[in-house]
């Protein structure tokens, strides 16, 4: 009896826990119905031939095997990893630099703080059109500016070698959300640390390197993970800038802007290959999982946490 009572009490929720579950129930229900269910269904579909219109037919590992022979699959994987490797290490210091600048107590700082966030709320289509104008190889603003200082700019949107750097530039324009996160983190760094460092004779660089950076390292780590995930899932910008109609069915010259999720979407909704698209989704999930796990492991010596590590 005593044992039973112990078991029962272990699983009984106290009032606080019940209230907690009640309050998060809208999310939990939504998650189960709209996320967990479809997620599991897509896992099943990944082993089937499924065109959405007819019942799925079990094909075992066929979809996964087909990926190994799919030239465009390897191209999209390469494009997405290349973009992620280029964008994440560029965006972090860029956004941090902006956040540091926005901390400065100068006239009109409120305007600048707003201005740097504006691209974030600019519609992606408008931004895409704008950047096509800026990056145009024929008469783009960027190349015209480079020409003033004697540099013959590349064909950003036409040359397959330069398409991904061009998209990185465009994405850097809209790092407002990261800037906001860094800005908030910077506000949280205790001022007395800086005062003590000044008393100890630390210069600006030493204060940044030994106080600011460690104190916000956990936030930087968070943004590294988020940016990695978002970069691997990039969709809207290349779709707007390099629609297939412009390059005769290709996403940019030689499919240089064909990123993983674009290809996945194309397979699902244009080529009626939902089973293959589901398999692509799960492969991307596993790739993301591996990358993020490696990042988490690698971060243990670099990220400062409350526990004093």
């Amino acid at each position, binding site marked *: 009896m005593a044992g039973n009572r112990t078991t029962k009490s272990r699983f009984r929720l106290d009032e606080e826990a019940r209230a907690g579950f009640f309050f998060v129930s809208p999310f939990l229900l939504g998650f189960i119905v709209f996320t967990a269910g479809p*997620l599991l269904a897509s896992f099943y579909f990944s082993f089937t031939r499924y065109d959405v*219109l007819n019942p799925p037919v079990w094909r075992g590992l066929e979809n996964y095997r087909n990926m190994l022979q799919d030239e465009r699959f390897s191209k999209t994987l390469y494009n997405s990893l290349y973009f992620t490797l280029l964008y994440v290490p560029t965006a972090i210091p860029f956004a941090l630099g902006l956040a540091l600048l926005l901390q400065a107590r100068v006239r009109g700082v409120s305007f600048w703080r707003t201005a740097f966030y504006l691209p974030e709320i600019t519609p992606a289509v408008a931004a895409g059109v704008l950047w096509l104008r800026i990056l145009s190889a024929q008469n783009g603003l960027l190349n015209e500016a480079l020409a003033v200082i004697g540099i013959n700019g590349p*064909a950003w949107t036409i040359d397959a070698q330069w398409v991904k750097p061009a998209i990185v530039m465009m994405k850097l324009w809209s790092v407002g959300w990261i800037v906001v996160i860094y800005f908030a983190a910077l506000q949280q760094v205790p001022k007395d640390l800086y005062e003590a460092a000044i008393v100890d004779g630390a210069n600006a660089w030493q204060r940044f390197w030994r106080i600011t950076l460690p104190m916000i390292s956990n936030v930087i780590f968070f943004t590294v*993970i988020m940016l990695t*995930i978002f970069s691997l899932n990039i969709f809207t910008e290349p779709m707007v800038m390099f629609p297939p109609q412009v*390059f005769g069915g290709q996403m940019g*010259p030689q499919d240089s802007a064909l990123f993983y999720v674009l290809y996945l979407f194309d397979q699902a909704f244009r080529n009626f290959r939902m089973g293959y698209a589901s398999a692509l989704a799960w492969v991307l999930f596993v790739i993301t999982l591996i990358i993020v796990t490696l990042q988490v492991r690698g971060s243990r010596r670099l990220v400062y946490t409350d526990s004093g590590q």
Partner: protein
Amino acid sequence: MNKVVQKQSSGSPKYSRRAILRGAMLISGAYTATWLAACQPAGQPGAATTPAGNSSAGAAPAAATVRVWGYGLDDVRAKARLATLQKSNPNITVSPVGGDLNTQQLLTAVASGDPPEVVNVDRVETGSWAGRGAIDPIDDLVSRDSFDLGQFYPILIDQVKYNGKLYGIPQFVNVDLIYMNLDVFTEVGVDPASVDPGNWDQLQQLGEQLHKMADGKVVRTGFDTKMQDNRLWLWSWANGTDLINRETNKANFTDPKVIEALTWGKATVDKQGGEQARAAFSQAQNFFSAQNPVLIGQTAMTVFEQWLIGVLKVNPKANFRAMLPRIRNTQDPLTDATGSAFAIPRGIKDAKRDAAWTFIKGTTSSDAWIAGEQATAADNKTNGQPYHPTITGNSAADQEAWTKIYQSISPGYDEAVKLFPEAVKAARYRYSGPVAAQIAEAMTAAVNDALQGAKTPEQAMTDLQQKAQQTIDEFQA
């Protein structure tokens, strides 16, 4: 971590490594897999059947709203066509969703059992939709009402058939013409009358002669074959072959005549600065305006659909000429016909199907098309613009529009309109089987790889052949 930090840790944001990892995994998983999977069919979908329903022959349908996707009612022509239908069927109202048909939307609507009553599909994709049972055959309706298919161009009716069954009624037609800006010809000293579209050597030479470069950039395209834009079909036909054997369902991309056409297309653009320079120039152009490249001489000669005259007419005095492409080394005209067709999705039955059919019949009739053209001409006149005719699927309506409603604008426009009847006679159509979309995608990728020099034409076509045949075989399996 250094000593300064370890002294004071309160006030820093709190994120444990475990929490970050958990959150990241969740977001990642949700991002990549969630939206893919919510497309399970609602009912028990199977092979397409003919939903005969129990409608009576020729009976007027009860009051109904017909939802039409991929077809807007925001222009005068469409409104007049609908008004003609509603004169005899006042009980029909239409709820349109304009713009291109959203395939994702249609897929999920059919799968969930709630599709629109009518869709306006690209005729090339008829087989893709029909082969998967997304649209239903309409032969029973045609027979029931003794509907006269003879009023439509035969080639268009062939294009909307799949496995011998009719899946749609043709709408607009687009045919390729070759446009020339005569001012550029005069400037360069070439007699436009000497241009022979069947002489590929001459076309290539003209491209080189007419193009212009400045500072290493193209500032005028000489001759744009549009090979980069799906015209491997046109040039392969012109060279005496086809890309897919329609009877055997065998891909034919490694046919020496196909490779020869692509090689010629690449050489033609290479002689004008190369594909990259052409694309850069094209990207900087403003097509739908008075700055249209053909209009202002940025393009001397190009393959383009006949509807271009609707863009050019912002300048009624535009000095241009249009010709039909020809079969190589002959005087025989040839063109590529594309366009759309109305179809009825799977799951539309009984009264809804009757209403859909009434809408399709009514808006594609000669009367409806003629009313549309007359209304467009009147509206153009009110706005001080000249009227230019289109090509519909309905031959009787076209005759009326081309010969009676159209009023001369200038010799260039008159000549172009005179080509329309010949064009629909000489037209061929692209493969519209169940894997047409996949093959088109693979083909454009391969052609562009060749044009941009990433692969030789032989390599590109060999790879494409394997991929296209595999796609066809997979579907048949």
